[in-house]
């Protein structure tokens, strides 16, 4: 390299081959663009934005009147439907009697080897527990020693076991998490963590308890990592799906890596909505599809109305598609058994949102090909951990 370095580089780079832009890729992009109607809350019928604006003003007047009449009190039940979206501060999740007694990565019929999560679950309660009686959170924690929902690469909201589990009985539960951390052979690469809550999701409101929330905002418990109170780490051999039977270490407090949450003290969990983040805009666009699945991207414009920078690492997006009748009546409630629910980390070009700033964030939802994501508007709540 005795010659001028720049000239040499320019000549040398000219000899580097260029990857061609194939017709196949061109067609693929065109299909994605054509199948990509922008679903936006701003794009309704011409009269609906006006109606929404007028309704919003009326709702604001009602809420203001309620607050002035009862400062710091619960919003009266008869106004709940009107004001619920604006006063819900978070969600209280009660631990289910369905306990995870064994959990490992394994293989289920029709899925690649070691690409599924398999659990043994035990009903420690007095009533049978069916598929829709519980909502589970399946996480792939970054640091398995912490066994935490908070620091996880990937999260899923899941149903209970497909068949009801009688009191005192155990059953096998399986789930194939599409999009969880995996290698090129589709094998899951991180140890899972699973916890079940009852489907009776309560609402944490400003003022006193309401709708089963049982928690006032003034002394609302901070977001609790349910994992730390219910379940420990998993042994390494479970990664391969060759785990042996479950063991309970509750009697040995010196061993934190209990594999069973049976008999362990469990606490309720509160997921608080981010108080300073406002969703200014929301849209759903087609992303990709396969023979049995389809995926969309949800893009949100968030505004930080607070005075401190908010890290995206501390946020979850809770997304749910309600049933036709339920979603308008209780837009805060994602615990309905028929709801289709998702929980995601947020991605963006920036890792945080500065005070007063707006940021476009996004996350992807993957569902069965039978589920039409674009036909309905999702409810999204930003949970701050």
């Amino acid at each position, binding site marked *: *390299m*005795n*010659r001028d*370095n*720049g000239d*040499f*580089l*320019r000549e*040398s*780079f000219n*000899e*580097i*081959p*260029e*990857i*061609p*832009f*194939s017709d196949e*890729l*061109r067609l*693929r*992009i*065109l299909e*994605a*663009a*054509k*199948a*990509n*109607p*922008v679903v936006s809350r701003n794009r309704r019928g011409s009269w609906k934005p006006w109606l929404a604006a007028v309704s919003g003003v009326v709702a604001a007047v009602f809420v203001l009147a309620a607050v002035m009449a009862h400062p710091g009190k619960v919003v009266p039940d008869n106004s709940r439907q009107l004001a619920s979206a604006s006063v819900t501060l978070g969600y209280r999740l009660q631990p289910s009697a369905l306990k995870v007694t064994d959990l490992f990565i394994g293989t289920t019929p029709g899925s690649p080897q070691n690409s599924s999560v398999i659990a043994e679950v035990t009903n420690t309660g007095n009533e049978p527990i069916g598929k829709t009686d519980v909502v589970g959170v399946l996480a792939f924690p970054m640091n398995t020693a912490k066994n935490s929902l908070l620091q996880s*690469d*990937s999260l899923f909201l899941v149903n209970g076991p497909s068949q009801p589990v009688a009191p005192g009985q155990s059953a096998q539960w399986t789930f194939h998490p599409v999009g969880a*951390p*995996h*290698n*090129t052979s589709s094998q899951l*690469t*991180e140890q899972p963590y699973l916890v079940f809550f009852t489907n009776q999701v309560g609402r944490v409101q400003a003022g006193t308890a309401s709708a089963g929330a049982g928690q006032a905002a003034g002394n609302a418990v901070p977001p609790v990592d349910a994992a730390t109170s219910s379940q420990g780490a998993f042994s390494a051999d479970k990664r391969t799906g060759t785990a042996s039977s479950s063991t309970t270490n509750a009697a040995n407090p010196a061993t934190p890596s209990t594999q069973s949450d049976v008999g362990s003290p469990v606490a309720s969990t509160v997921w608080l909505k981010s108080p300073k983040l406002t969703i200014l805009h929301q849209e759903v*666009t087609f992303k990709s599809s396969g023979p049995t699945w389809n995926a969309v991207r949800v893009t949100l414009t968030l505004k930080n109305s607070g005075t401190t920078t908010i890290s995206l690492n501390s946020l979850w997006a809770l997304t749910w598609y309600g049933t036709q009748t339920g979603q308008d009546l209780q837009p805060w409630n994602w615990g309905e058994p028929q709801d289709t629910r998702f929980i995601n980390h947020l*991605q*963006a*070009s920036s*890792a945080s949102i500065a005070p007063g700033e707006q940021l476009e964030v996004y996350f992807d939802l993957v569902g069965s090909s039978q589920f039409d994501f674009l036909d309905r508007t999702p409810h999204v709540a930003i949970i701050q951990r």
Partner: protein
Amino acid sequence: MDENGQHSPRIDLLTEWMHLYGTDVLNVAYSYVRNYQQAQDITQDVFVRAFRKMDSFRNESSVRTWLLSITVNCCKDYLRSWQYRKVRPEEHIDEDGQEWQSSLSPESRVVQRLENAELWQAVEELPVKYREVLTLFYLRELSGQEVAQVLRTSEQNVRTRLYRARVLLRDVLEQKGWHHEQG
């Protein structure tokens, strides 16, 4: 435009953009992620985003630098994601796999030649901040000002990074025996 964007001027414009700048976007994406499939996915993402945001394009920069700016953002998002951290970025192709090679698409064969080019291998050893300026300046032949627009930094910063990138690249190449005979 109709709801699905079919048979519309916007689709025509998207087609033209792909014709003019598709290779730029794909190759820049590949330079970041070094995985052909992922580069294709990002290229799709870039053009779909651009399609959706056509109306917001304000001609403050060229379409090319706008698209490449979106590309860089998408790639950096990907490089920050768990997928990049967990999945091996490049499927290096076995040079002895003749039978397999025969089934490769023309594009994959180019990727193979690219990966076998010593200069490219040297570039890949550099940190992203230097790799990106080299790629945009030398491979895509953008001006210093255009590189600055794409990377949303100052032209002076681009010049500084280019200088350091050349020095680093020279060191790497010299270690590979590219001394006098290559120069």
